[in-house]
């Protein structure tokens, strides 16, 4: 799908209760809208049907990887060139636990951050937003936006829903 060819309706709302109402009505039509909000609200999540994310699994995987590296790197380096210190065992587990812990946290957080960015990019392809909506500069401030991607046939239907729920502006993209 190409970004330029967006077909659908998007509306700007001032009030959250109107937004949630709109979302629920759109979903009743079997279409999942994309909602733009200045801050996350549980009401909107509920209206959207509590969507989930794959992020925790990514974090778990890289956390485990970090833990493994955290133990194996010290163990391998220590046995690569055996230099005894203070009569301690060459493979000393307690000190390596610290490295294991630190790398678990480091790997998890780094890859979580990267994943947030990547998943965001992927989602922007999966659920595109019309260019005009991107240029509307009040979503980050105090306005709610609802974007519905649909066939040309359904445009009117969604435009009506938005307007009826008190949208400030409704734009139809063909």
């Amino acid at each position, binding site marked *: 799908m190409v970004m330029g060819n967006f077909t659908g309706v998007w509306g700007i709302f001032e009030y959250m209760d109107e937004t949630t109402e709109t979302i629920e009505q759109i979903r009743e039509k079997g279409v999942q809208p994309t909602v733009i909000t200045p801050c996350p609200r549980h009401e909107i999540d509920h209206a959207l049907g509590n969507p989930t994310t794959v992020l925790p699994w990514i974090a778990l995987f890289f956390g485990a990887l970090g833990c493994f590296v955290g133990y194996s790197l010290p163990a391998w380096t220590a046995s690569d*060139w055996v230099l005894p210190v203070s009569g301690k065992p060459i493979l000393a587990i307690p000190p390596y636990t610290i490295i294991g812990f630190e790398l678990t946290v480091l790997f998890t957080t780094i890859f979580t951050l990267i994943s947030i960015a990547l998943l965001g990019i992927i989602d922007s392809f999966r659920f595109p937003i019309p260019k005009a909506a991107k240029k509307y500069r009040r979503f980050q401030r105090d306005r709610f936006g609802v974007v519905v991607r649909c066939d040309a046939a359904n445009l009117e239907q969604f435009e009506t829903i938005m307007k009826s729920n008190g949208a400030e502006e409704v734009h139809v993209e063909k």
Partner: protein
Amino acid sequence: MVSRQFNLLSLLISFLFITIYSSAAYAKQPIAFSHKLHTVQNGIPCQYCHLYARRSFSSGVPPVSTCIGCHGPQEMKLVKPESSEVNKMREYWSKNIPIPWVKVHDIPDFVRFPHKKHINADSDRLISDAGGGCDAENAPRSLECKLALFRTGGDERCIACHGDVRSMDGMKQVDDNFGKMGWCMECHLQVKGAKERKRTGNTWAGWFHAKEMDIEREAAIGLINDKGFHNPNTLDCLTCHY
């Protein structure tokens, strides 16, 4: 536009290249002394001039009297009486000034490198086979080749580290990382028992009492040699750094 940027880039790269690899060039010496001429054509062995190599830490730069021993003062018309380069040497000799040779093979001051230990080392007893033969054609400076040279002994042993001086007109460093720790370690790891000492010394000693296992291994890895005395430990830091 593009081509200019490309030119700039290639200039930068070549500059870096030259700076990095300039060490491989022949060092500018006060006299254009040719090792090739002396060793190959005249058959002088290394230790004829570098006479302290087997006796001392330093191999010794030949005293000017060694040169004059063959070349002689000009009026004696011994070897090459008219050569301008040799005359430079004669001038130093007559002025009683030692020749300020430029040091090519330099190791840091915190490393103790005894030439005598390396020249006198019994290679058969000490050095294990690196496995794989020496491909002298394509990879003359590979580890296998260096070890082979070392095991040959004589002048070849010098070549193992200093490169094929016999083919050099001047003097240059053949291995770019000559004198770096990893470069030394490459061969030091080939000494019998060294790898075992380094890697598996006793990794599990902290958790299992591994006495019998270790004593067996000790004999197996050749810490004690056929003469019944202990092979030198080439891996201990204090072997070179003290």
